[in-house]
């Protein structure tokens, strides 16, 4: 996209200006070209594929959510206003903001589909954070540092998927059973799904993927053409949420 823009402006006789202009805009927006791995080390690009058909077969199943909450000490708050959510279910039309899909998706209408942070390739939440408390790793995981976050909630305004939660109240008394292997959070910071980076570090898959009986969730390296996720994306039409915003989500939904 930025190449097109550059070419266009170049044609308008503003080539030099455009190149510097776009570069500095990119720098400002924090959207440089993807990092090249040092010494040819192959860095994975983690992604997830949700198979909606399989997921909806087990209508009402919340195993993935329970597993995630257990693994990450996600608190349960009674009021909707203060909820903390990492992976949760939304009606299909809300998840895909599909007003006016007409008769096209009758089968899916009102069905609850799992949603989570998309670990966007071009994440607006990262761009806006004034203290770099949220950042994108080389492998694409969008991370949160709960010790640095100042709780300004700018990232929540920026995320177009409502994927971030704020600890309006002290979460600790609201964690059912504390998992000692994972930190609990304090009030006043933002949190969200971390693609189970702590499990990936041990060579395991995300908790939600492991917990899914229907095997509706697949996780893997999007950069590897031979990976299971790529295989799934090849075999059936898949969509991403709000592609028009250019955030480049890494979570795909197979229709």
């Amino acid at each position, binding site marked *: 996209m930025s190449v097109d823009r550059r070419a266009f402006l170049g044609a308008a006789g503003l080539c030099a200006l455009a190149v510097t202009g776009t570069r500095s805009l990119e720098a400002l927006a924090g959207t440089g070209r993807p990092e090249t791995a040092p010494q040819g080390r192959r860095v994975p690009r983690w992604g997830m594929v949700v198979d909606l058909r399989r997921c909806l077969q087990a209508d009402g199943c919340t195993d993935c959510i329970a597993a995630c909450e257990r693994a990450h000490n996600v608190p349960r708050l009674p009021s*909707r206003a203060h909820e903390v959510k990492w992976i949760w279910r939304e009606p299909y039309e809300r998840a895909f903001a599909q007003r006016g899909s007409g008769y096209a998706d009758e089968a899916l209408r009102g069905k609850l589909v799992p949603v989570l942070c998309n670990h966007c390739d071009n994440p607006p939440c990262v761009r806006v954070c004034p203290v770099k408390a949220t950042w994108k790793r080389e492998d694409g995981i969008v991370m949160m540092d709960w010790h640095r976050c100042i*709780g300004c909630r700018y990232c929540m305004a920026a995320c177009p998927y*409502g994927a971030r939660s704020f*600890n309006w109240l002290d979460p600790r008394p609201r964690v059912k059973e504390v998992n000692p292997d994972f930190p609990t959070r304090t*009030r006043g910071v933002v949190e969200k799904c971390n693609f189970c980076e702590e499990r990936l570090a041990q060579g395991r898959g995300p908790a939600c993927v492991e917990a899914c009986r229907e095997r509706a969730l697949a996780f893997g390296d999007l950069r590897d053409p031979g990976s299971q996720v790529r295989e799934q994306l090849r075999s059936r039409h898949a969509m991403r949420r709000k592609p028009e915003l250019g955030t480049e989500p890494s979570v795909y939904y197979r229709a």
Partner: protein
Amino acid sequence: MPDRAFGGGGRYWAWLGVLATLIVAGALAYQRQLALGLGITGLSRDVTWGLYIAQFTFLVGVAASAVVVVLPYYLHDYRVFGRITILGECLAVSAVAMCLLFVFVDMGQPARALNVLLYPTPSSIMFWDMLVLAGYLGLNAVIARATLAAEHRGVPPPRWLGPVIVLSIPWAVSIHTVTAFLYSGLPGRHLWLTALLAPRFLASAFASGPALLILLAMLLRRLTGFDVGREALQKLGLIVAYTMTVNVFFVLVELFTVFYSQAPEAIDHFEFLFLGLEGQAGLVPWMWASVILAVLSLGLLLTPRLRRDMRLLAAACAMVFASLWMDKGLGLIVGGFVPSPLGEVTGYVPTLPEVAIALAIWAVGSLLASVLFKVVVAVRGEPGGPDSHSRSVRAPVEA
């Protein structure tokens, strides 16, 4: 007679007492917020910014509006604004101070506020906003202080002040532009995702700020006899008439684009604000009141005969200020969050502690403005005393 400078020391101190009470009440409420978290506000997962950030946004405009008096006076040597300019600068100082406080009370982890300086992040507009606001506060404080000090000694302001004043003019524009960019650069927030937001912010600021300045100047004359002059107020009233017109025009342009295109995303926000969505209509009367006040004020301002009547000018200014405060001081920010990116329609009503904290910050600003104005009045001499015109600020910048 500095004690009489504010029209009777008793009234002045009573006023400060009222402000102090509000500040103490707000401090207590803030202590509760610190102990329990921002959960004691009316904010929620969907409406993550509310009264605090909206007040911040509105007050940035009030601060930026000082440029409306600074520019004609210093750049064009427009002497009529001689006495009101310093008031404008003092108002800017108080407004920026309130802005910073509003951002501070909105933080979930205020103890980490310094992280913004420890980890400077050029990609974040919030980082730039902090920079320009702090810079603007400094500029205005320096300018107001140096001019007053010079006047106090009866000498022309120092030469170095010229460039500082010139710098403060684009700087004022920048603070509100950058503040608009906080919002207008966010994907998926369709009420804000418009290039018109920054111009709209500026137009509304250049209407609401001078309107407040007119009201304060009138009040000051009542209380202390310190008179900025009828001509200055009338000229400023004319500026308010123009800027308010431009502001309303911008809003209409926005409405045309949104409603004629019929693209649903942006329409939803306007429907929530002006008609109510899914039973959530709390802001509807509020927004319509803002519209009605805007229309009425324009009627008064755009009719020269009415505008020349000082009483009606005051009424018009009060309406402009109230209208824009309602729009920017709540509607625009809350409206941007509803419906949420997931289409959720969540209402927002500020809670009592939240209102108490906001009031306290307004009280801090008023206190600051009162004290600064008092100093100005004292330096400029009491009514009937040596008139400021005889030793007025010589514009350090030649037009």
